[in-house]
């Protein structure tokens, strides 16, 4: 048994840290906070220069052939820093799907542009009426010669305002069971008929509601077979689970530990001498170590040729629920000061607890709710029968 990630990973981690120290500038952070957009073109360009949009990809596709352990170290550092990687994340995820399921023409057209940082691809799975039940998508695509005409709405199309394409799940056959009538497309966003409406989240992030009115897409932009969209999604949803877990929690605990070292209670006693305070921070430390180990385990499963399905669900469930618990507890621990908002100059440690408390509400939902993860763990992990 060995819990180290190996020397190559350690070296790559150091490189990632050095990069972040330089490229993830206070200005980038400030812009992220102000706009709520977790994509930054300056930062993106800096990544491109390093060849780091997809360092895990083979060199011939524009990657660096990094192994899963190196990628884990890389991803841990980016998560821990809270760097703006939503845009690159969805772009590379869709590119991975293209690499595995796209036509030769699609690969040649999109992969080099994506890897050069010229295009951003966003996700168009969720709809106003379908979230966890993603296969219930109703956005229609109707064939018209060599083209398809798309009508519908997508929800949580994060970074649509920055994006060039949306990887979109559509219904092409409403007369068959829901999983059998779906088709996926790469839909150009900068065209007539696409409307993007900003949506704000509780933690200040910007996402979008996107509308598609008679949007035309050439059949060449179809990914996978007609009515074979669910197979594409199955691959896609697997890529969605990242290895690294719990970056937000790690940052939060670092802030709290910095706070406790100099904090005093109303009677002037150092908070760090209060066993209750220590126990609450310590419990978070245990949870964070577990989240981190779960992320590493997924990477290791992947590295050894497996598919971290149940393991990925456990990591996602555990780390997001832990963040929910911890952030609520730390807001409490700070007493009346805990509710000073991130952004208010008086906020303790920049309002880290308040921010995490808000952010956690999304963490237990996106990428599959906690309830969906529990279903997966119960059925695939424990072999329990599916509910009727």
């Amino acid at each position: 048994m060995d819990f180290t990630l190996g020397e190559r990973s350690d070296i790559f981690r150091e490189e990632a840290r050095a990069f972040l120290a330089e490229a993830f500038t206070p200005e980038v952070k400030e812009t992220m906070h102000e706009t709520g957009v977790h994509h930054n073109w300056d930062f993106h360009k800096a990544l491109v220069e390093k060849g780091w949009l997809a360092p895990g990809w083979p060199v011939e596709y524009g990657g660096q052939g990094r192994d899963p352990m190196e990628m884990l170290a890389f991803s841990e550092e980016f998560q821990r820093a809270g760097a703006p990687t939503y845009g690159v994340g969805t772009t590379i995820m869709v590119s991975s799907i293209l690499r595995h399921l796209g036509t030769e023409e699609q690969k040649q057209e999109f992969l080099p542009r994506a890897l050069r940082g010229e295009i951003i691809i966003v996700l168009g799975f969720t709809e106003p009426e379908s979230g966890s039940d993603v296969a219930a998508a109703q956005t229609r695509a109707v064939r018209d010669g060599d083209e398809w005409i798309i009508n519908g709405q997508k929800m949580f199309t994060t970074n649509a305002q920055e994006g060039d394409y949306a990887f979109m799940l559509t219904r092409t056959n409403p007369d068959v069971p829901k999983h059998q009538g779906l088709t996926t497309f790469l839909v150009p966003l900068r065209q007539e008929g696409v409307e993007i409406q900003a949506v704000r989240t509780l933690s200040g992030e910007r996402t979008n509601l996107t509308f598609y009115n008679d949007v035309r897409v050439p059949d060449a932009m179809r990914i996978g077979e007609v009515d074979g969209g669910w197979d594409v999604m199955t691959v896609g949803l697997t890529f969605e689970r990242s290895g690294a877990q719990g970056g937000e929690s790690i940052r939060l605990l670092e802030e709290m530990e910095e706070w406790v070292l100099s904090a005093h209670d109303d009677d002037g006693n150092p908070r760090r001498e209060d066993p209750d305070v220590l126990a609450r921070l310590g419990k978070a430390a245990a949870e964070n170590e577990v989240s981190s180990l779960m992320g590493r385990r997924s990477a290791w499963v992947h590295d050894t040729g497996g598919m971290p399905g149940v393991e990925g669900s456990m990591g996602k469930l555990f780390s997001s629920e832990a963040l929910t618990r911890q952030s609520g507890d730390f807001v409490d621990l700070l007493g009346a000061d805990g509710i000073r908002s991130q952004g208010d100059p008086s906020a303790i440690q920049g309002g880290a607890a308040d921010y995490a408390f808000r952010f956690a509400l999304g963490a237990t939902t996106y990428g599959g709710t906690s309830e969906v993860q529990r279903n997966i763990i119960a059925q695939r992990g424990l072999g329990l029968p599916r509910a009727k």
Partner: protein
Amino acid sequence: MDLNPTAEQDQLIDAFSSLYTKESSTERVRAAEPLGFDEELWDHLKEIGALEMAVDESSGGWGATMLDLSLVAEQHGRALGAAPLFESQVALRLLARLGEPAKELLRASLAGEALTTVALHGPTNGSLKMVPAGAIADRVIFLDGDKICVGGTSQRVIIENLGSMPVADVSLGGDVEVISTGAQARDAFEMLFDEWFLLLANALVGIGERSIEIGVDYVKERKAFGVPIGSFQAISHGLADAATAMDGSKLLSREAAWSADVMPERTRELAALAFGFSTESAREASYRALHYHGGYGFMLEYDIQLFFRRAKAWPALYGEPSKSFARAESERLKKIESGV
């Protein structure tokens, strides 16, 4: 035993409920953010007698009971009222208890000439932190050791906060006046805490119950996998637990308020218990309801987040629930030792 409100109590509830329906819709609550003060609502509340009711006739009011005030508080909570109702009411009652030295401030506060609030934490380094309604009040009452003092609020910093409440840090200036000292002052201020707990506890009942209603409506409508999501035990059991806790909160918070008028010897304990319990229950209820909204719960656009933020932030102005549970237990132990 009769858990139904009396006819008079029903009238009172109806009157305020109508007012809040008109003057404190969630649109209005949103419009009052981030400061959290809706002056029009406040004017209506004053007009309907929300200040006068807090003190009795000898003090210029019309002497509602703590239970009456608490039933109104529940409506205020349900509507997330953006007005300094509780701080004003407990301040007025404190002033009334202090008698002569507080007479002029009581008159001015009651007349609406001075918006008077209270600080829940004594001064540190010459400053009162996180004063509720401090962002809009003219005067703030606070306890400094064993002295009850009143100060102005001109040197204040408005604090943006999770609950979008009109909170400020107030630096004390030269205009601080002592209005009571010694054991009498401490006792009077302790009672102020009891009363603030009672109003908050009942307001949190309103928040939590309304949250459950919103959540239940949502999960009955929202479908996934071909059925309303409320048919999944993963959701229905969470709501059942939350509804049970809110139901308990309501019973406990009303009993605590009732005791203030009928068996005050139990009020210190019950008020602190109700405050702690309602805090935990309302937080859980609003969290459950929000989470079951899926991604929509995380969007500013849906109302449930307003309830969720307020449920967390409002009681935090005092401190975490364990603090009031400890206060209640101290009171219980005192009674056990004295053989009551």
